[in-house]
């Protein structure tokens, strides 16, 4: 057992830090600090910068055009990236983190060649269609269906929470191709352009008054045969393949580390009594408690990264990371709002423009919106209740 990062890791950290210092544009850093939703144009520009460096897809193997980094390297990269105020990669759609791995693992040579480079270069913006209204965590009950018709598939149904579909030009989804087998079987994985006739995207405005979510309707959408990824009927297992890694990402350990730095900054900017809130013992105690929770989550995250590199699959840890990570996200964002006092009440998403000088300090810009949107963190990617169900099953199976 040796829980320390190696000298190679430290060198890698320095390399990442230096690159970001030089190449992460200040306007993007500022946007990432101030608002949750970032304009796709900015994201594309950033993706091109990353691609030029060869870092467009940190999680992909080299042969797919990725960095080939180990999970621990990715952990280090993510930490540096977040501490430098890099924008949330998902703001560039689900290309790099979700559909890429499915394509390079299950796609044909032709599919890989067609889609992967465009993702790396930031040319395609992907939206995902997994969830359906009323299905919640019960993914296997999905009702969108794809019917074979000659060389085509005809897709009809209704998806919800299709993040950033209004910015996307490509879409992937799960649809039922065989209604006669048990629910988890008979689901297949499709990709196609979002402007295919019959696709309608309807915005869902979230309680932060932002627009990142959508409902998507499919009315006899006709797509060619090679829209199917992998084997027919195996879509469910491909989706499950993504979930472990997604839970790791959703825990947002490094980003929350940055959020806690920001929280100290906000507290230091908020007057309180004779000094600032950062000098108020009771408030500091609340931050400290969260910092300690983060410290243990970092240790847990490093262990999971190491396990990934060792090829050890630990489903319990993935659920625990998701559970604890998203709770911590919420605690930190809530405390950030608490820190703002009255100033937090002034609600001014960027697109509103209804006021001149915000009452909250620069350090606190966007924090209310972030807190509101991230109420969803314990809901998406398998709700906390779902994680507890999964965990209990795994634990009982052991004893």
């Amino acid at each position: 057992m040796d829980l320390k990062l190696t000298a190679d890791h430290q060198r890698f950290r320095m390399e990442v830090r230096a690159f970001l210092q030089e190449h992460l544009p200040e306007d993007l850093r500022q946007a990432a600090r101030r608002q949750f939703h970032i304009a796709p144009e900015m994201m594309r520009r950033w993706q091109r910068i990353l691609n030029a460096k060869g870092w467009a897809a940190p999680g992909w193997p080299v042969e797919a055009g990725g960095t080939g980094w180990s999970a621990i390297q990715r952990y280090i990269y993510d930490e540096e990236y977040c501490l430098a105020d890099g924008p949330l990669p998902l703001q560039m759609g689900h290309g790099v983190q979700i559909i890429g791995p499915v394509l390079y693992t299950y796609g044909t040579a032709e599919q890989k060649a067609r889609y992967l480079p465009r993702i790396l270069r930031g040319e395609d913006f992907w939206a995902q269609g997994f969830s359906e209204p009323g299905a919640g965590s019960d993914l296997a009950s999905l009702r969108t269906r794809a019917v074979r018709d000659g060389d085509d598939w005809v897709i009809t149904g209704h998806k919800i929470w299709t993040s950033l579909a209004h910015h996307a030009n490509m879409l992937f989804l799960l649809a039922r191709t065989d209604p006669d087998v048990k629910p988890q079987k008979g689901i297949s994985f499709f990709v196609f352009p979002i402007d295919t006739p019959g696709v309608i995207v309807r915005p869902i405005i979230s309680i932060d008054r932002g627009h990142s979510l959508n409902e998507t309707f499919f009315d006899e959408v006709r797509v060619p045969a090679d829209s199917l990824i992998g084997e027919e009927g195996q879509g469910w297992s491909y989706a499950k393949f993504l979930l472990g890694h997604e839970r790791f990402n959703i825990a947002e350990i490094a980003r929350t580390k940055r959020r806690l730095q920001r929280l100290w900054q906000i507290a230091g900017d908020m007057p309180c009594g004779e000094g600032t809130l950062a000098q108020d013992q009771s408030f500091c105690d609340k931050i400290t408690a969260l910092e300690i929770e983060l410290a243990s989550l970092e240790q847990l995250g490093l262990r999971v990264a190491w396990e990934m590199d060792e090829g050890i699959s630990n489903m319990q840890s993935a659920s625990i990371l998701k559970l604890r990570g998203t709770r911590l996200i919420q605690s930190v964002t809530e405390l950030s709002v608490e820190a703002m006092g009255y100033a937090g009440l002034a609600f001014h998403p960027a697109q509103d423009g209804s006021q001149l000088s915000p009452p909250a300090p620069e350090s606190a810009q966007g924090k209310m919106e972030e807190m509101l949107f991230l109420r969803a963190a314990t809901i998406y990617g398998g709700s906390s209740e779902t994680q507890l169900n999964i965990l209990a099953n795994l634990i009982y199976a052991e004893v």
Partner: protein
Amino acid sequence: MDFSLSLEQSMLCDSLNAWLADSYDMASWRKLTASWPPEPSDTWQGLADLGVTGLIIPDSYGGIGMGAMDLHLVAEALGRHLVIDPFLSTAVLGAELIIRLGDEAQKQAMLPAIAEGRLRLAVAHAEKTARFDPFRSTTVATATDDGLRLRGEKMVVMDAPLADRFLVVAQEQGAPVVAIVNRDAPGLTLNTYRLVDDRAGADMIFDDVPAERLGAATADARKAIDAAFDLAAVFVCAEAVGAMRAALRLTIEHVKSRRQFGTEIGNFQALRHRIAEMQSELSAAEAMSLGAAAGLSEGKQDRMRAVSAAKVQCIQSSRYVGRNAVQLHGGMGVSQEVAVGQYFKRLIACEPMFGDIGHHQARFASLSGRAA
């Protein structure tokens, strides 16, 4: 000791609830909050016609002269319907400051107008440099021959975009003073914005703005402000209780109607227990909030202790109820389309008002006798 409603209270509740069900259902609320900048709506006159804008105003000034317990009932009802009219600013905080501090002419000029729905007020008290203490105001009032002149800035003045006049907490040679400012006063700038819960607010800049002193120069403005803020804090608690009650109700209806894995999700024991805990939190908040309303007529020490306990308890309960109401709605809980998120945001907005959890916990502690 009597927890039951008097006949007068029952009648008040019945008529208010009937009016709210009719004029302030979710569809109406969405219409009222859709436009920006906000426009005065006829709901304000509706509330005045019910008598509630004059609830705490004495008969002699056209009100109905009821007390804090009655106000608590009204606040709960308004919270249940997410009312966005400037009720707290005008009929609670504004009216109470005028009642406690105003001279006879000012009372005559403003109190009947509030009761009749002809006057909307906003109270400017928050500043960037002071967290929750209105007496740390850096807005300075200077006495002149014809009244006061104000210089300074206020932030997050709730209901300011709708107000006809402002009551501004300022300091005059180190002592607190409340100044009356007209909407069209020269030197006054408003930067307006939505508040998180879709009420309207503004930052205000006073550049040598002419104002009128509320009450006599010899009056104890500090004492009046303290008492009025405690009344307002209890009103906010009661409003939160009403919002929690509505959010819990929506959540129960949701879990009883939504099916997953072949059964109503409300049948899952983990959700059943969550609902029970939410009810428990609501009950604790309601009990303490009512206790604080009763405590308003006690001595200063007991009053402040009860109010602070209520504010802390209500914030804690609000967090538990609000967060879980959203959580149990699943993804739809974070959508603007579904009502529960609006309740969540109202509960968030209630947190800092007249002191947040840290402020009131510290105040409670400073008042507590540590008996041996």
